[in-house]
Structure formats: structure tokens, C-alpha cells
């Protein structure tokens, strides 16, 4: 038999066998179900392969989800920080508003925009100046107490001399004993109460308020609390350290008031606040 004939025979066998199968299974569809037994191992293998591929897919999904969650966490933390900042700002502004309501003639709210250019002085630059009615030597207060006074006035900005500066001074008195003195900055974080005679009784915890005798600050502005008293080793006056209620390092908003402004209920410092980073008068 020639090769062509043999090939034709093979092709014919294939065709006949295939057609017979197709016709048979097409007519007897029930037999198709019987063939499922042959596909069982394949189904098992296929299921295993699917399981493996799904696991791999889930692994990649997990990695992707992990990355996405990290990004979301970062965004949420940023948002949380922003919210905390807004809450703190809201609290400060509320206090400032309450303070403003306690001033009969009102005051000018200022916002700190930077530290003073003079490195040797503890000053603060605020966002209001001559155009907004700020005048040199005007007292600067916050809801907690005295913050400083206006040192220089420019057109739209002013420099505030803070209470802890060596050049700052104000006439004060001890709230309880009514003894007078002069408070000045120590150049560090706290203040010094000067010119209190040795024979006067001063104890830590005493509250210091302005006396109004200096012609700059009206009487009754809370300044700070006595933290240390030294009577030995001094000649005429005691060495008294005062912690200001308003920490100079944490002023963000303040109120500039005029000499004629009358203060109501300022003899007591504002209640202590809770947020982190903000200074509160010690109990």
C-alpha cells in the first residue's frame, strides 16, 4: 500500500471514529454524564490549581491591601494631628473670646507671626500694628494672664516684649498679702519679683497680679505664681521667683488692650486647660 493510501486510511479512520463518537454522544446525552468520571482527576487537579492560584492572588491582594492600609493610616494620623491642632486652636480662641468679653472696651486680638529679630531679647512679632490702633507700651494679655507689652510698633506689625525678658518690668502686688513689688524677666523662662522687703511674708504659691501703679498695666491682671522664696543671704529684699501663668514660649494668640480698658474678673487666672502643648497656670 502506498504512503498516500496509508495516510488516507489513517485520516478516514480518524474521521469515522470521531464522527461516530459525536453522533453517538449527541444522540445519547446521558452517556456524557458517564464521561464525568474521566474528568474527575482533572477536576481535582484543577481545583487544587485554582486554590493555589487564589492563595497566591490573595497574597498579592493582601500585600496591596497592606500598602493601602498603611497609606490610609498615615493619612488618618495626619488628619488626626490636624484635628488636634484645630481643637487646640478652637480652645485658645474660645478662651480669647471669653477674655474679650471680660474687657469693657474690648481689645485687639493679635496672632503671633514670628519670634523677634533680636536674639538677645524675648520678643514676639504679632500681626497688628499702627494701622490697627496698636500703640507702644500697650499691655498684652492672654486668657491666662499677663503676656508682655508692646515694645515697637510698625505699620502692620508690632513687637511684644515678653514677661520673661530682662528688660520687662511691671508693678505688681501679691494678691493675698497685698504687698507690692516689681516683676521683671529673668531672661530664662520665669520672672523675678523684686523689692519685697525681707520682713514681709511671702510663700510659694502666692499669686502675683499687676498693681496698676506703673501707669502701663491696669490693676488686677494675673501675672504668675511664686515658686521659690529666698530670704537668707540677701540684704534688704527677698529673692522671689515667679512662674508666669502664661508661658512666653507658647503664645499663639493674645489680646492687646489699652490702659483705659477695665478688666472684669481678671483677678483670678483662667481655669487650667488640658490640651498637650499648651501651658496652664499651675494649681
Amino acid at each position, binding site marked *: 500500500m502506498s*504512503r498516500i493510501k*496509508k*495516510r488516507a486510511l*489513517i*485520516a478516514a479512520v*480518524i*474521521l469515522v*471514529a*470521531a*464522527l*461516530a*463518537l*459525536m453522533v453517538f*454522544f*449527541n444522540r445519547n446525552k446521558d452517556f*456524557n454524564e458517564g*464521561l464525568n468520571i*474521566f*474528568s474527575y482527576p*482533572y477536576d481535582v*487537579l*484543577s481545583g487544587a*490549581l*485554582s486554590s493555589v*492560584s487564589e492563595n497566591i492572588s490573595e497574597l498579592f491582594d493582601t500585600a496591596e491591601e497592606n500598602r493601602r492600609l498603611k497609606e490610609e493610616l498615615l493619612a488618618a494620623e495626619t488628619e488626626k494631628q490636624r484635628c488636634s491642632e484645630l481643637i487646640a486652636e478652637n480652645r485658645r480662641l474660645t478662651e480669647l473670646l471669653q477674655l474679650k468679653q471680660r474687657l469693657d472696651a474690648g481689645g485687639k486680638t493679635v496672632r503671633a507671626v514670628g519670634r523677634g529679630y533680636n536674639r538677645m531679647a524675648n520678643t514676639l512679632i504679632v500681626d497688628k500694628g499702627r494701622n490697627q490702633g496698636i500703640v507702644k507700651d500697650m499691655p498684652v494679655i492672654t486668657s491666662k494672664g499677663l503676656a508682655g507689652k508692646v515694645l515697637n510698633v510698625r505699620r502692620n506689625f508690632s513687637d511684644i516684649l515678653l514677661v520673661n525678658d530682662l528688660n520687662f518690668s511691671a508693678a505688681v502686688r501679691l494678691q493675698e498679702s497685698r504687698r507690692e513689688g516689681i516683676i521683671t524677666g529673668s531672661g530664662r523662662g520665669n520672672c523675678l519679683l523684686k523689692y519685697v522687703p525681707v520682713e514681709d511674708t511671702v510663700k510659694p504659691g502666692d499669686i502675683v497680679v499687676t498693681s496698676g501703679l506703673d501707669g502701663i498695666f491696669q490693676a488686677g491682671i494675673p501675672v504668675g505664681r511664686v515658686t521659690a522664696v529666698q530670704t537668707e543671704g540677701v540684704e534688704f529684699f527677698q529673692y522671689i521667683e515667679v512662674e508666669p501663668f502664661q508661658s512666653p514660649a507658647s503664645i499663639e494668640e493674645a489680646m492687646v488692650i489699652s490702659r483705659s480698658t477695665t478688666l472684669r474678673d481678671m483677678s483670678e487666672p483662667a481655669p487650667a486647660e488640658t490640651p498637650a502643648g499648651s501651658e496652664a497656670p499651675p494649681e
Partner: protein
Amino acid sequence: MKRPFKIALWIVATVFSLLLQSKLTVFGFPLNLSIALVYIHAIRLLTVQPGDAGFTDVTAETGAASFGAIIGLLEDMMSGALPGINLMSKALLGLLTVMIFRDFISQWTPVIGAAVIFIVTILDGAIVVMTTQFVMDVDINEYNAMLMVLTQAVINLPLGCLFRCGHKISDLRGL
């Protein structure tokens, strides 16, 4: 390579190909690795030395057609298609592959390998689609079917380049 090991290798390759083509899709079209397997088996048969035991003038044709029939039948049973469609297609194309290499090509080159597997894949798709339409009376979107077959043929192209005939085809002529 010993014969049992060869057989095991082909079984593994067959199962793997059938699993892979049922799982993977390219542009939404399933692969057609079974026809590639038939093609590869056919050209491997042609590398058998003329002096080998059992090698007759139509051994390669018979072997390729038988292998194609087995692969096709397995595919039919596993895919749930009407048994016989893939059997006929793969068996005929196994036979055709051997015939092409024996009668029309004097020297295997990667381009020729790619061209042959491309044609064989296209023919397989055409036979399966037409037979399915004819026998099972199923409506098939011809455009989609054409795209699918073309995609499968293109995917199989590299296999045509990779798997070569080990000997000069001209040496096999006249066997």
C-alpha cells in the same frame, strides 16, 4: 531517554497543558496549548532515526494521529464538549503536521516552525468551531471565534520556534 520516562514526561506535559489552558486567558481568550503539544509531539516523532526499531514509513503519521486523538479525547472529556470534536481535529492535525514536514519542507528553521504551528492552530480552531456549529447546532459569534483562534495562534508562535526537528527533514524523505 528511557521510554517510561518519556511517556511520563508526555503525560505530565499533557495534564499541565490542559490545566493551564483551562486556567489562563489572554485578552479574555483561552489558550490552545493542546494543539501545540500535538505539533511538538509530531515533530519529535520525525526526529526518530530511520534505523530505529519499529520505524516504518507511516510510523510518525500513526503516532502523531494517535497522540492527537488521545489529547483531543481528553480535552473533550475534560472540557465537557461533545466527545469527538477535539479528537478529530487534533488527530487530523497531528497527521497533517507530519505530512507538512515530510512532504513540503526540506529544512526546519524557526520561521518555518512558527509558520507551521500558526497554520495548525488556525486550522484546529476552524475545525473545532465549524464542527461545534455543525454537530451541536450552536450559534457562535464568528468574529469572536476568529479573534480567539488568531490570538491562540499568535501565542503558540514561540513554541514553533523553540521546538525544533532534530534532523534534516530531507533525510526523512522516502521513508
